[in-house]
């Protein structure tokens, strides 16, 4: 197998604490090694930045609601479908890229792993068909549990062991990675047109509260010892004043201890926190509570979060928070797609335009940036756009430019139509901090890898780790000074190594590499009660047979399985 030596690059590796020193990185047989022989191919990284391949911990890139978003928005591909000469397929879609564009675009930006944020178990096959067709990048998917009838019933009776056994069963049936919770209880309420807007609103009929659901799922997650913590999209997304619900939810993690063999040190991952950090009581007086939220996150080390940065684009919102999408449709009257999934969850899709001329959108933009800039531990704060909800993932380079240069973000801030109002409602103008390249590596590589339980092999450049490496045309000593230059540098890598193979060269895809589907196989002791309940629910309430539910091996020809032994 190929040997490479990346020479003279400025290495940023939080795993080894390397902060830009010139260091050679040796690659052999898909791994980073101490040294290679003289026959190794040299990659000249002089004047360039070398980091591990990036990991996106939360994006909506594969599955039924993503695809509904695609095909119900032909205008998203209008004048935006093209094929680059070479080995790539036709790529298209501004806010919801086709699967080919998804793989290529992430790879061009230096990403090697993407987590599909929400997989409805009944549609798992669809998620895996899309993952299978997405080139280059490794992917995994998080099945949703927060509105699942089995979970609601078990947790009402505080049956953690049964909950854990069911979770393990679902992970195996769906080839899922962990425990995702979206609008706990609220999406089941939405099947009747209702919602749960605080953590104490009971779910109709099931009579359990979001607080009990979230706490129970965290306990079950630690009972199993899964690689990733429970991953939550809180109640009351997007509404002014919702930061109180956010703090209530974050507090549920207090006292719960992480238990796993993957190096994970947190018990809750709170996602796209920008949408959950609003003060005020209406869109007329909405203001930022990013400081209050981050004060809590900074002090409570058992939480990780990701930002959900608004990019100020026309985009498409899509989430398993079904009632939120109905609410958004009532606000902007744009076409609304909704699907409620029997016994499990729901989803909605609505296009949205984040305009710099609308002060609410500008305030949202500021809040997303403030979360990252207030973060004291970059290993617990990750950069996302909740793609495509707050913006397309292809805008990550632009988000980096706002975080890494006060000048660039102030230019944007001061030229908003209602700049005074926006500045008055947010903290951003007072923040001088600029995220450094090292911190960026923490927030986009080492941090997410560790939170996902992949820190041993991914997110770093230590010998023994997987050779997923991104080399950028960025000279740390001459860091680009304009927004456009920063964006350009992060948008197209000089090189992307994936599993030790060069897949991208100067922004051009040269090899499809070996993508893997990551999933978690949690072994629990035989649980007759849960198996009985599963059998019964399939016979009586599901519209498919139990034997037709699991995702067969053929959908994930290359699997990377993390095994968990939770037999106790």
């Amino acid at each position, binding site marked *: 197998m190929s040997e490479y030596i990346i020479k003279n690059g400025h290495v940023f590796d939080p795993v080894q604490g390397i902060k830009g020193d010139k260091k050679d990185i040796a690659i052999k047989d898909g791994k980073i090694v101490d040294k290679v022989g003289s026959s190794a191919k040299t990659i000249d990284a002089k004047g360039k930045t070398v980091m591990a391949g990036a990991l996106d911990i939360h994006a909506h890139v594969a599955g039924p609601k993503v695809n509904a978003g695609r095909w119900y928005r*032909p205008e998203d591909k*209008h004048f935006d479908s093209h094929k680059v000469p070479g080995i790539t397929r036709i790529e298209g879609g501004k806010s919801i890229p086709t699967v080919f564009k998804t793989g290529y675009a992430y790879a061009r930006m230096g990403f090697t792993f993407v987590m599909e944020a929400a997989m409805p178990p009944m549609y798992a096959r669809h998620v895996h068909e899309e993952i299978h067709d997405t080139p280059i990048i490794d992917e995994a998917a998080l099945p949703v549990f927060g509105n699942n009838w089995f979970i609601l019933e078990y947790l009402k009776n505080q049956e953690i062991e049964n909950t854990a056994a069911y979770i393990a069963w679902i992970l195996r049936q769906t080839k899922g990675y962990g425990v995702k919770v979206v609008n706990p209880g609220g999406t089941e309420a939405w099947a009747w047109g209702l919602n749960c807007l605080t953590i104490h609103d009971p779910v109709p009929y099931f009579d359990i509260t979001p607080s009990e659901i979230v706490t129970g799922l965290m306990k079950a997650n630690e009972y199993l010892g899964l690689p990733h913590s429970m991953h939550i999209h809180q109640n009351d997304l997007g509404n002014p004043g919702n930061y109180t619900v956010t703090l209530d939810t974050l507090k549920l993690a207090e006292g719960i201890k992480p238990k796993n063999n993957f190096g994970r040190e947190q018990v809750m991952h709170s996602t796209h926190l920008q949408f959950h950090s609003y003060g005020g009581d209406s869109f007329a007086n909405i203001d930022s509570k990013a400081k209050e939220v981050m004060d809590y996150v900074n002090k409570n080390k058992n939480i990780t979060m990701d930002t959900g940065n608004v990019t100020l684009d026309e985009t498409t919102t899509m989430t398993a928070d079904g009632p939120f999408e109905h609410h958004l449709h009532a606000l902007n009257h744009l076409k609304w797609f909704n699907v409620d999934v029997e016994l499990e969850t729901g989803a909605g899709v609505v296009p949205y335009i984040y305009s710099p001329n609308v002060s609410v959108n500008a305030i949202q933009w500021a809040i997303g940036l403030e979360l990252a800039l207030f973060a004291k531990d970059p290993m617990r704060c990750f950069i996302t756009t909740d793609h495509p909800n707050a913006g397309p993932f292809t805008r990550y380079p632009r988000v980096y430019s706002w975080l890494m240069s006060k000048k660039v973000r102030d230019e944007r801030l001061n030229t908003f139509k209602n700049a005074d109002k926006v500045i008055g409602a947010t903290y951003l103008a007072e923040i001088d901090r600029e995220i450094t390249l090292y911190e960026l590596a923490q927030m986009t590589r080492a941090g997410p890898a560790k939170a996902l339980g992949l820190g041993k092999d991914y997110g770093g450049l230590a010998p023994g780790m997987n050779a997923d490496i991104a080399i950028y045309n960025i000279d740390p000593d001459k860091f680009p000074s304009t927004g456009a230059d920063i964006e350009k540098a992060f948008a197209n890598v000089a090189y992307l190594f994936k599993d030790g193979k060069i897949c991208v060269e100067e922004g051009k895809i040269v090899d499809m590499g070996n993508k893997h589907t990551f999933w978690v196989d949690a072994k629990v002791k035989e649980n007759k009660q849960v198996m009985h309940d599963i059998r019964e629910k399939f016979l009586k309430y599901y519209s498919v047979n139990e034997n037709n539910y699991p995702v067969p091996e053929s959908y994930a020809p290359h699997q990377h399985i993390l095994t968990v032994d939770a037999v106790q």
Partner: protein
Amino acid sequence: MDTITLTVKKVPEIYLECESLNPDTFAGKTGDQIAKLPAYQGKEMSTLGEYFTISGNAGATAAETKIIVNGDCSKMKYIGAKMTAGEIVVNSDCDMYTGSWMSGGKLLVKGNVHSFCGLALKGGEFIIEGNAGNYLGAAYRGDWRGMSGGVLRVKGNAGSDVATFMTGGEMIIEGNVDIHLGTHMEGGKIVLKGNANRRVGGQLVKGEIYVFGKINVMMPGYKKTGEVDLEVDGTKARFTEYIGDLGERHPKRKGETVYGKLYMKK
């Protein structure tokens, strides 16, 4: 203004995609350079020069460019699409997408046009002396932003799905239309001098439709509110006023609901 003349010398077998045929793409080019601009029949890339004899040169800018097209263009698509300035006169029928996504300048077709023409018109003046097909001045598939500005005049008839999702601008149809005029309209003005078959102003949120002729079946969501004297496109007459579509949402202004208006000439 510089005038460049294109004369059809070969009719395409399957349709020719003429995305290059507009003042913006021609601007600053000589006739020879324009002859080399791409034109497609399916996957076969050809040039404008293969299908047209070209005489003259374009102007330095789109605004200074006038294009005259002679010969049978009934199998040419995208003529004048996306133009922002300048003039085009086509002395023939045209196929689909003529004048679509136009935002300025003048486009005159002395013949008929097929479907999907004048899509999402933003500005300028588009005149069709013959008939138009379906989806005239409509939005592109899935887009809620249709025609938003400019003036589109059809001297003959138009088909169905005319002016869907219109948000602004003015459309005048001097002949008749089939079904679905102004569906999902959110602004703008439509003047229909002839008759409509059915479904005028269905799901209309805001906007004005003036009908001089008859509508075979009125939408149930339209309610008569009175009569007014108006001057519309040079004609003074008495119109019955309707508000609607009452089955649809409507914006409010200062607490008052702003309905769409349908005027039927008495």
